[in-house]
């Protein structure tokens, strides 16, 4: 069954949607979308390192993204630059360095478009194991840190004062973000991973009045985006990542209708 490339892409996408929903909610709630972008951009560097050292790609991306997150924290402490400038600095310089390294690795043929925007043909059976096992682990850890992470998202001081450990939860969440980027890069691509995290979530926000509902809608939105996106990718021969994200955008636009209704009801 997994011999068909399309089935593999679909199974990969479903796995990613389940993880991206809950994580995406926290990315939106904690205003980390640009942070997610930065980690994702650095993933390209991870890929090149993996190729040049003949190392596991997912692990390499995970390590590089985590390292970038650590560097960011250090820069925030030691410089007077605002966070968005630091994020931009890291995002673009790691992307640039990644591309420069690719330029040097002339002996390996890179599908740059595939790296940046995802490739439906690239997902192999091993990737499926990485996505589903890694995804299950991510969800398990997220479940364990849910309470302190959620409480500190609502109010940091409240969580800290009442004995939860928000700093630890935040650090672990950063690692989870690096992890989902590592497992979803092949299907969605470096430049669009954050879209997978935040667009279904943005749609879910329009449809929900409580956090649990928002997580569930984000997962459903992600699943629908994967289905619609991959089928149209197959049909119209478009790259998989952009197709999925475009489908998510369409769903988001539909969800705006609901917002309009609620606002009308209020008036």
């Amino acid at each position, binding site marked *: 069954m997994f011999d068909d490339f399309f089935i593999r892409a679909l199974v990969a996408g479903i796995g990613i949607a389940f993880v991206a929903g809950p994580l995406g909610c926290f990315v939106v709630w904690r205003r980390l979308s640009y942070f997610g972008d930065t980690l994702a951009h650095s993933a390209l560097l991870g890929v090149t390192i993996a190729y040049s050292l003949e190392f596991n790609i997912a692990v390499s991306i995970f390590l590089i993204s985590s390292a970038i997150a650590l560097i960011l924290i250090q820069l925030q402490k030691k410089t007077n630059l605002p966070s968005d400038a630091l994020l931009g600095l890291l995002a673009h310089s790691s992307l640039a360095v990644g591309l420069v390294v690719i330029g040097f690795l002339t002996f390996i043929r890179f599908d740059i478009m595939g790296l940046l925007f995802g490739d439906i043909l690239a997902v192999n059976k091993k990737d499926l194991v990485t996505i589903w096992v890694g995804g299950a682990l991510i969800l398990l850890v997220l479940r364990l840190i849910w309470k302190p992470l959620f*409480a500190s*998202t*609502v*109010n940091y*001081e409240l969580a*800290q*004062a*009442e004995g939860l450990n928000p700093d630890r939860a935040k650090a672990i969440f950063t690692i989870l973000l690096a992890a989902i980027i590592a497992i979803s890069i092949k299907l969605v691509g470096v430049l669009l991973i954050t879209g997978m995290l935040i667009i279904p979530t943005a749609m879910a926000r329009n449809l929900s009045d*409580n956090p649990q509902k928002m997580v569930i809608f984000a997962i459903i939105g992600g699943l629908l985006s994967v289905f619609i996106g991959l089928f149209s990718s197959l049909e119209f021969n478009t790259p998989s990542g952009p197709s999925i994200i475009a489908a998510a955008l369409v769903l988001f636009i539909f969800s705006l209708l609901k917002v309009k209704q609620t606002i009308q009801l209020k008036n």
Partner: protein
Amino acid sequence: MENNILVKLNNVGFQQNQKWLVKGVSLKVEKGKIVTLIGPNGSGKSTTAKIALGLFKNIEGQVEKFTNNIGYVPQKISIDWTLPLRVRDFMLLTDNLTEDVIDEALSLTGVTNLKDKSLGNLSGGEFQRVLLARAISKKPDLLVLDEPVQGVDFTGEIALYELIKEISEKLNCGILLISHDLHTVMSATDHVVCLNGHVCCSGSPKEVAKNSEYKALFGEQAAQTLSIYEHKHDHVHTSDGDIKKN
């Protein structure tokens, strides 16, 4: 008695951007007692409360905390619109409570009807009542209330202060209260600490009201409020934490 102490600040200070927000503050909160911090704006009341809660890392002096079961009502809290949150979700923020416990706490502060409402749609006073309900719902050993009744209507304010007093007796929990409302403070408090960057004076409400520094900070009139409300005390707290009716 030593084992009744919930939190003890010993000569603590905290500075930010080379400026001392508070310095040389010592106080303790014991079981069943209400300690109130008063002082003008910027006198370090909230900072002192946050030091007691362990929210700052680089402080001078020592904080000894003897409990981890704490309920906190912060002075300012803004709930982001990006996060859809109903009152019931908020009640479960730091603790796993049963529906019954949530209902009970909400009814104590008079907002049972708001349980399924979105937090963003509440008025200031309603939100304040929900904050207080959340803090007391987990039956804490120590309650830290930073201006808990701000924005609450006048009759509600009195009722909530009564409730705070009742809770301290019923749960035998210690309360660190920050308030601007001298009337209520003076009637419901066991110990008053008057802050102005440092401890101006402290003691029973009666002692503080007589203090010349207190008068200088709040004026003669404030000192007189005490005499009006003093008769409301219908019990005394013995040194072992017990309550004796007069």
